[in-house]
């Protein structure tokens, strides 16, 4: 796994360096004073008046990453030549251990049919006394006592909209002390003083994704304020200690190969890919104060999101999520699975992008936030990214999918998830399907 991750990183870095050479733009440069002043003035509206980005392209897109994952093979594993009913017919061919439905049911016990949920039991037909009012009351109590562990347990059943911002901050241990605000201001100063090539990539990404999104276009300027600072935040390097990935290195001009002249590039070690800004966008519905928004995003990234774009064997890692998705689908919806495979529409090719983005930009925001409640609650990405939800979506649209005859048609059936209600879908798939 590490080897695969290593060679993937080399590829990304090479791509970045060649873009750099092609466009004759340095990876980093200090801004002249005039430019610094201008940027400072424009800090709250960087979305307008952007530079010419036409020559920039994202370093990679999720589908490029998927190709790498598909080609992962364990050289020590002997599969035997004969096909049996156990043969995994999906795209991922790495034998990682993933949970099956009984194990998932146990892990996600609070999502069971007999437990109240926000996202189901707060709909108009259900009188609020049955669940919602009591749930809100408990939430307020949890906040009053500032109990982080209780908060984490609590959001497994969903968070009331009015309490969510505080609950997430409590779970992530974000408290916005003066030193945090100072730290953010320091990052902002770094942005003003130095221009990084990566900045243009961020700009481009926001313009391609969030700016065109019905829900998030309003927050475009916040995204720059968060992501430009993020790429300069060396504290993020800390997460590489538990990440199979390593931060890319670059060398001071003329000192190639000399370790003492190596720097991490970008400073936070994370090269953004197409869609990266969508990790931040939903958070803008909760936090409108830039330094708090920043802290929350950073913490979410180093706890969860990084796993979605690095190759590792971790159960919440993207490889496991893909495998989990395929296994669930193949086991519980075999007809659908085979049919789609036959017509050249491997399900993972469609659901991969949902998982890598943690469904951001694919679900309606209120549903997405209910989903992310559960990520925080269970400290695991298995619920959303890839895993169960993706499988549940396929199950839900199974009837239509059985009738399609091409990848394009399958994509069309699954193109618009904006009307889906997340929690009922999950419950049905996990708890109501006959196993």
């Amino acid at each position, binding site marked *: 796994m590490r080897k695969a991750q290593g060679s993937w990183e080399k590829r990304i870095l090479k791509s970045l360096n060649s873009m750099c050479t092609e466009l004759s733009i340095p990876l980093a440069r200090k801004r002249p004073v005039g430019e610094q002043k201008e940027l400072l003035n424009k800090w709250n509206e960087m979305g307008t008046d952007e530079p010419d980005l036409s020559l920039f392209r994202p370093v990679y897109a999720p589908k490029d990453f998927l190709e790498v994952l598909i080609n992962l093979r364990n050289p020590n594993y002997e599969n035997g030549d004969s096909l049996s009913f156990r043969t995994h017919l999906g795209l991922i061919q790495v034998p990682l251990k993933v949970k099956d439905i009984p194990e998932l049911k146990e892990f996600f016990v609070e999502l069971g049919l007999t437990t109240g949920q926000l996202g189901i039991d707060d709909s108009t037909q259900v009188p609020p006394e049955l669940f919602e009012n009591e749930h809100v009351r408990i939430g307020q109590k949890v906040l009053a006592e500032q109990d982080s562990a209780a908060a984490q347990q609590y959001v497994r059943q969903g968070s009331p909209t009015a309490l969510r911002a505080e609950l997430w901050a409590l779970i992530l241990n974000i408290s916005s002390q003066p030193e945090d605000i100072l730290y953010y201001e320091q990052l902002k100063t770094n942005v003003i003083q130095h221009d990084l090539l990566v900045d243009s990539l961020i700009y481009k990404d926001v313009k391609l994704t969030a700016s065109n999104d019905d829900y998030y276009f309003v927050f475009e*300027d916040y995204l720059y304020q968060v992501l430009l600072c993020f790429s300069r935040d060396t504290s993020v390097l800390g997460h590489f200690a538990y990440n199979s990935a390593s931060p890319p290195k670059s060398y001071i001009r003329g000192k190639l190969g000399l370790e003492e002249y190596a720097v991490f590039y970008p400073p936070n070690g994370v090269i953004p890919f197409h869609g990266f800004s969508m990790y931040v966008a939903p958070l803008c519905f909760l936090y409108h104060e830039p330094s708090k928004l920043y802290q929350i995003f950073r913490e979410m990234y180093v706890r969860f999101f990084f796993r979605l774009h690095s190759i590792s064997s971790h159960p919440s890692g993207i490889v496991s999520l893909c495998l989990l998705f395929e296994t669930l689908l193949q086991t519980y919806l075999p007809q659908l699975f085979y049919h789609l495979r036959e017509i050249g529409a491997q399900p993972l090719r469609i659901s991969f992008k949902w998982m890598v983005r943690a469904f951001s930009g694919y679900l309606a925001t209120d549903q997405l936030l209910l989903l992310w409640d559960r990520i925080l609650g269970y400290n695991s990405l298995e619920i959303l990214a890839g895993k169960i939800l993706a499988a549940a979506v396929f199950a839900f649209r199974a009837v239509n999918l059985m009738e399609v005859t091409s990848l394009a048609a399958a994509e069309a059936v699954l193109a618009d998830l904006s009307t889906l209600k997340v929690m009922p879908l999950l419950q049905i798939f996990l708890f109501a399907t006959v196993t």
Partner: protein
Amino acid sequence: MAGKVKWVTDIEKSVLINNFEKRGWVQVTDSEDWNFYWMSVQTIRNVFSVEAGYRLSDDQIVNHFPNHYELTRKDLMVKNIKRYRKELEKEGSPLAEKDENGKYLYLDFVPVTYMLPADYNLFVEEFRKSPSSTWIMKPCGKAQGKGIFLINKLSQIKKWSRDSKTSSFVSQSTKEAYVISLYINNPLLIGGRKFDLRLYVLVSTYRPLRCYMYKLGFCRFCTVKYTPSTSELDNMFVHLTNVAIQKHGEDYNHIHGGKWTVNNLRLYLESTRGKEVTGKLFDEIHWIIVQSLKAVAPVMNNDKHCFECYGYDIIIDDKLKPWLIEVNASPSLTSSTANDRILKYNLINDTLNIAVPNGEIPDCKWNKSPPKEVLGNYEILYDEELAQGDGADRELRSRPGQSLGPKGGRSRDSGRTVLTTWK
């Protein structure tokens, strides 16, 4: 059952025509016998003008009230609301209660407004009290943001002064009439941008008042960051939210069109400000819409052949107070994005289902009380008959979506209705 509904329109918009055709209605010209005429405001003027002597028969319905301008012209709307408030005050109604500064507690929802040139001197007096304030000049009879500008100096509106040598009979005519209102220079900003709300309200009858609110309203954002700075008073991209204006801006985006659904707004406000204040805001918005309709109800020609779908424009300030900016008789049916098209198509669909029951040839003598199932995305905003009868019939309280009038309280099993906590 006698035949298909015959329709005419002078507004060539696909969202209309598609709706007529899907009902199997038959298109005719206005010189033939027609049952349903979706007309522009110019046409309604002609139809109901004294000279035309038009008599509508029982099986004919039109989409405007004859004197809708009592509500939809900026100056008349303000006049009617001022009159309504004074009347309530005279009869000692608790709704007309004022605070210690003389401001209405419940009926202060229109920014201070004067007619020009008629009230010029009154305006000057008011202006001098706070000379650093900004005012917005709007022509009474125009739409789409045309002719609007902001001022912060008296010299900028010299020509509306009654004593002005440039004034003549021409400028006294209604064509030149303007209203000047105190500009709301502290709008609620989201993402640093100003926005307003467009809400659709269907009125089927004014006496008794029966009106419906479309659940799928939207916010219209400016493409440029808001600044109250005087150097940007001329920049319409900062201040005017009309799509007709914003779509010419450099940063206009054709995918989302700068629009947010009202549900997004609700989610954002609940998440960042809390549930109670958000609920209160939306209650107030419903309240001011109903009050504006009650204000004009006595002067409206409640012609039984008419219904009307209004476009209400509301601005929320940074204290979460909603302000009624204006009411449009002919809300735009142009679609600026794909979502827009779907929304407007459904809007017309639901409107027709309520106005022309069962899609059959109408009889304007019907009681205008459609069954709940046909409301679609509309919710009852206010039903005067029900409100008056509610003491007698407790059953009605438990149906979701029904508003109960000023004396009603939130019913325990009406679930998520937000229309019931009147002051």
